[in-house]
């Protein structure tokens, strides 16, 4: 790739902070406290992977130093997330959703196509498009950094998860964790596991819950999750159309410029001014699209993942309830037969404890989830409205200025 992605990423260095702050804000209560502060201080994009510099500041005694950094890749984040999910002790918590894999394929393809088509367009057009694509690349880069950071911050903010040993290793161990991505066999295993889980989930969800709170939450989450999924997809499409329209403005601006420079009548000044207008208004439209993406699409996507995590929690609880009920039945049977009663009793007690533990923490988790959600939506919707207003006013100003000039001329 002659077009260096590295140069893009180093440009990202100081700029991703803005969007990471945005995404962190999606979870408002992630106030960093002195005990443990985690952030991604740097990121580098290489051929086909992204290297994140995870920076920790902590006063906890578990760590050797108070401040340190390590370099991590996406697979290592996934490893950490999966270790949480598989840990029985954490069954009663909403596990912060894993960050999505960095996906620069589309952007890379476009950059490549641009490089190939360099000969067929004018220098101005080429520069414009190159800038456009670089900005796009930058935006994707910023987002992926932000999402990885939010994951870490959520873990760091969770009273139980932050103490996890794997988490500390992740933060501190300054060598490669030798965590490789799942190979085909493991991926297949995962696939089957998921199938079993969802089938089981259906069976388990058939069991009516005595507890009103959980019953309500279950119905709510199911519907909510589906609707968020739909809204997130539609918002994505809307944002993309917006971007396409903004790109058209770009081309129109270029054509008008060409017309303006070639025309022999006095309309050439006119064309040049309108071309300028389209160029400027296009920048604003692109920002509108980007802000909608950030404040609306990303918000919805994040809560899609979180609501899935919440659903998973409910599933685990239901599963443990079923196990508990089965254990009860087994105990009754054992008592009736007067065989292996002690074994059944222990088993039943374990199940009971597990179930109660999960229920207790789950309740709190779900309440927290709602609080977080409401706060996040509020913040983002307010910011969305404010940004839309700002851009519309900017656009209006541009248009009115241009019209004043044009009308003054004619």
């Amino acid at each position, binding site marked *: 790739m002659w077009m260096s992605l590295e140069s893009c990423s180093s440009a990202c260095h100081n700029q991703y902070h803005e969007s990471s702050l945005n995404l962190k804000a999606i979870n408002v209560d992630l106030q960093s406290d002195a005990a443990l502060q985690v952030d991604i201080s740097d990121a580098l994009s290489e051929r086909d992977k992204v290297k994140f510099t995870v920076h920790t500041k902590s006063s906890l005694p578990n760590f050797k130093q108070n401040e340190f950094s390590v370099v991590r890749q996406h697979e290592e984040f996934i490893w950490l997330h999966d270790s949480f999910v598989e840990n029985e002790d954490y069954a009663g918590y909403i596990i912060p959703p894993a960050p999505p894999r960095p996906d620069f394929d589309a952007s890379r393809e476009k950059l490549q196509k641009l490089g190939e088509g360099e000969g067929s367009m004018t220098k101005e057009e080429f520069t414009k498009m190159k800038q456009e694509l670089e900005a796009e690349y930058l935006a994707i880069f910023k987002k992926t950094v932000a999402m990885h950071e939010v994951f870490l911050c959520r873990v760091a903010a969770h009273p139980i998860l932050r103490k996890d040993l794997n988490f500390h290793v992740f933060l501190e161990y300054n060598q490669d964790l030798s965590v490789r991505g799942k190979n085909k066999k493991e991926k297949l295993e995962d696939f089957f596991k998921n199938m079993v889980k969802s089938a089981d989930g259906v069976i388990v969800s058939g069991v009516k819950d005595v507890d009103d709170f959980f019953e309500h939450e279950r119905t709510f989450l199911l519907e909510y999750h589906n609707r968020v999924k739909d809204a997130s997809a539609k918002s994505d499409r809307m944002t993309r159309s917006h971007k396409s329209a903004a790109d058209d403005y770009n081309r*129109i601006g270029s*054509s008008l410029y060409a017309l303006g420079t070639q025309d022999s009548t006095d309309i050439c000044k006119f064309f040049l001014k309108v071309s300028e207008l389209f160029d400027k208004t296009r920048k604003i439209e692109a920002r509108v699209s980007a802000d909608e993406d950030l404040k609306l699409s990303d918000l919805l996507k994040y809560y899609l993942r979180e609501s899935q995590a919440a659903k998973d929690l409910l599933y685990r609880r239901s599963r443990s309830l079923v196990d508990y009920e089965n254990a009860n039945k087994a105990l009754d049977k054992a008592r009736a037969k007067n065989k292996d009663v002690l074994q059944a009793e222990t088993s039943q007690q374990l199940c009971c404890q597990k179930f109660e533990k999960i229920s207790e923490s789950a309740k709190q988790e779900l309440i927290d989830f709602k609080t977080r959600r409401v706060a996040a939506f509020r913040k983002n919707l307010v910011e969305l409205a404010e940004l839309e207003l700002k851009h519309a006013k900017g656009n209006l100003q541009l248009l009115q200025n241009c019209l004043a000039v044009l009308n003054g001329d004619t």
Partner: protein
Amino acid sequence: MAAEREPPPLGDGKPTDFEELEDGEDLFTSTVSTLESSPSSPEQATASLLAEDIGTNSNGPKPAEVVLDDDREDLFAEATEEVSLDSPEREPILSSEPSPAVTPVTPTTLIAPRIESKSMSAPVIFDRSREEIEEEANGDVFDIEIGVSDPEKVGDGMNAYMAYRVTTKTSLSMFSKSEFSVKRRFSDFLGLHSKLASKYLHVGYIVPPAPEKSIVGMTKVKVGKEDSSSTEFVEKRRAALERYLQRTVKHPTLLQDPDLRQFLESSELPRAVNTQALSGAGILRMVNKAADAVNKMTIKMNESDAWFEEKQQQFENLDQQLRKLHASVEALVCHRKELSANTAAFAKSAAMLGNSEDHTALSRALSQLAEVEEKIDQLHQEQAFADFYMFSELLSDYIRLIAAVKGVFDHRMKCWQKWEDAQITLLKKRETEAKMMVANKPDKIQQAKNEIREWEAKVQQGERDFEQISKTIRKEVGRFEKERVKDFKTVIIKYLESLVQTQQQLIKYWEAFLPEAKAIA
């Protein structure tokens, strides 16, 4: 017909006193000239065309044309005398008018007062009105307004058609009323264009092209599909027809044409049958167009006038640029429509999400968001509408207009070709004569002499025609350029104003939403 006018001295294209009787040819030296002479030129040119019977002019039925020509001839028989009487009056006009640089003649102010005072017979009014136009050729006051409205379906099945109401508001006295309307169908418009094109195109007038046919579009309408795409199609056509008529009446020469007047005024119009795409005449047209294209490639013209070459190049560039811009604008329209649809889908989805949200305040806010997005979707739709009808259609109109301009340049080339051919034939005839002289065959010599005289006249005519068309084109291009500048400026400003409106609405909507979002507790 050729006999009725004495050909001027050979090789001398310069105006002489004698030529004042020749329908004001000496007015070539003033901007006044083209309009003055234009009544003569179509008829002159058609005269020569008819004499030579060149089959390239295939627009519209021939018989009707001939009749018209005869009428014209008579008109000018009378007018000739009037002109000479008035020539003293002419002088001031001649001297005050600027030189024939491409100064466009902005036409038409009220003609009524002058005409009333003279109370002359029709043919002279025809001529006189041009004079008035010249004298008041300054303002942009254009006192005729055309509207095309109320499309309604007439008939059933495949014979059905759309009838449009054409309303004219004017204070020009050449019309009998100041406001009137008629019902016309699409083929009537095509017929009108066809007639105008056949009369004026080949002498260098840029006749605005009529909207394009669309078999698919019309079939849907005929079949009675009442969906949005057929209503859109009808609206697109209605708007295009309106713009077509408005452009046509803006042209000072075309405005004077009786066919145009008949089109606007008379309640019954003979059906133009040769406009159907698949008719015999239609196919003939296509064949001839192809033949023209081939001919064009083989004509190698000695361009003595750099202006023409320059202009042709300019129009070529303009054509390319406009096409590019048009493609981009069409893409914008498409994406804007997409955006509108996606916004509507999102609005519904957000409403659903609001419904399932169990936190009351957030639920309400989400519903409000859905409402805002729905209103914004409407905005996008309206903006797409504006994108299309103002910007995109303007560009496609001009792309077709430029094709007409190019056609006019081509006609000039053909004219030149004819002149060349005549000169070559004359040369051959002279050679023949020489040969006959040598061979001493008295009867053949006489025939040769006759033929020479005939071809001398044709060469004369050819040269005159060529100069005529060249001058007409210069004027027309000037007028066209001025119109183009005006058109683009007006439409683009209107378009920008539509964008302003959209932003203002957006501001309103988001300002209303903001407190709702803040109210989430």
